C-alpha cells in the first residue's frame, strides 16, 4: 500500500462515520417526534393553563386560572412544615372533606410566579394530593380547592432558611 492509498481509506472511513452519525441523529429526531404525540393526545382534553402560570401575584394567578376569588374554609386541610430548611424541596399536601371537588391548586405567594401546581380531580378521584414545591423565601402557601363551582382556600406560613429559586 502506498501512502496515498492509506490516506484515501482513512478519508472514506471518516466519511462513513459522519454519514452514520447523520443517520443516527435523524432516527433519534424522528423517535422523539412520534413519542411526543402520545401524551399530547392523553392531555388534549385539558390544555396547560399558560396564562395562569405566567402571573406574578397570587390574586392574579387565581383569577387567570379560575376567574373568581376564593374564600377561606376550615374544610380544606393544608399540611406544610412550619420551617423548611431547604426551600428547593418543601413537602406540601392538602386534603378536604368538601364534596364534588373538581380541582386543587397550590400557590406560593412570594415566588416569582405564584402558581406552583394545579391538579384536575375527575369524579371518582379522592380530593387529596401530596407533592413537593420550591420556595424562593419565607412565604405563605395557599391551597385552593374548587368544589361544586366554588373556590375554597387554606393558607399557611412557611419559613424558609435556604431559598430554592435563586443562585
Amino acid at each position, binding site marked *: 500500500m502506498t501512502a496515498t492509498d492509506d490516506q484515501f481509506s482513512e478519508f472514506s472511513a471518516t466519511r462513513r462515520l459522519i454519514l452514520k452519525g447523520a443517520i443516527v441523529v435523524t432516527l433519534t429526531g424522528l423517535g422523539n417526534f412520534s413519542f411526543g404525540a*402520545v401524551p399530547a393526545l392523553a392531555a388534549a382534553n385539558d390544555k396547560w393553563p399558560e396564562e395562569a*402560570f405566567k402571573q406574578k401575584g397570587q390574586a392574579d394567578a387565581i383569577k387567570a386560572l379560575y376567574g373568581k376569588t376564593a374564600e377561606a374554609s376550615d374544610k380544606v386541610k393544608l399540611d406544610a412544615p412550619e420551617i423548611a430548611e431547604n426551600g428547593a424541596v418543601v413537602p406540601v399536601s392538602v386534603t378536604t372533606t368538601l364534596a364534588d371537588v373538581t380541582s386543587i391548586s397550590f400557590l406560593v405567594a412570594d415566588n416569582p410566579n405564584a402558581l406552583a401546581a394545579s*391538579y384536575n380531580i375527575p369524579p*371518582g378521584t*379522592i380530593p387529596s394530593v401530596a*407533592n413537593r414545591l420550591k420556595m424562593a423565601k419565607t412565604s405563605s402557601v395557599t391551597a385552593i380547592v374548587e368544589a361544586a363551582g366554588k373556590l375554597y382556600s387554606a393558607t399557611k406560613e412557611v419559613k424558609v432558611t435556604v431559598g430554592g*429559586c435563586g443562585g
Partner: protein
Amino acid sequence: MASTIRVRATATGDTTEVQALIQHPMDSGFVKDAKGNLIPPHFIQQLAFECDGKTVFLADWGTAVSKDPYIKFSFKGGNKGDDLKISWVDNKGASDTTTAKIQ
C-alpha cells in the same frame, strides 16, 4: 433508556393509592450555572394518569415544583393487576410514558 417514571400503585378495598417519582431537572429559569449564565426553564407541564381508558388524575405543573417531582393521590376503583398508564410532557416537547400494574 430506562423509564424516568417510577410508580407504585396499591389497591386496598375500593381505592387505589398511587405514588410516583419522576426524574426531571425541573429548571425554573431563575437559577444561574457556575459561569453566571441563566439556566433556561425546563420543566414538566402536564402529567396524566390513566386507568381503564379513563383519566384519573391530571397535573398541570409550573416551575415551582421540585426537581425529581413526587406526587401522591388516590382514586376509587382500580383492581389488582389493572394497568395504570402514566405520561408526562415538558415545555421543550420531550415526554415519557410508562405503564404500571396495580398491586
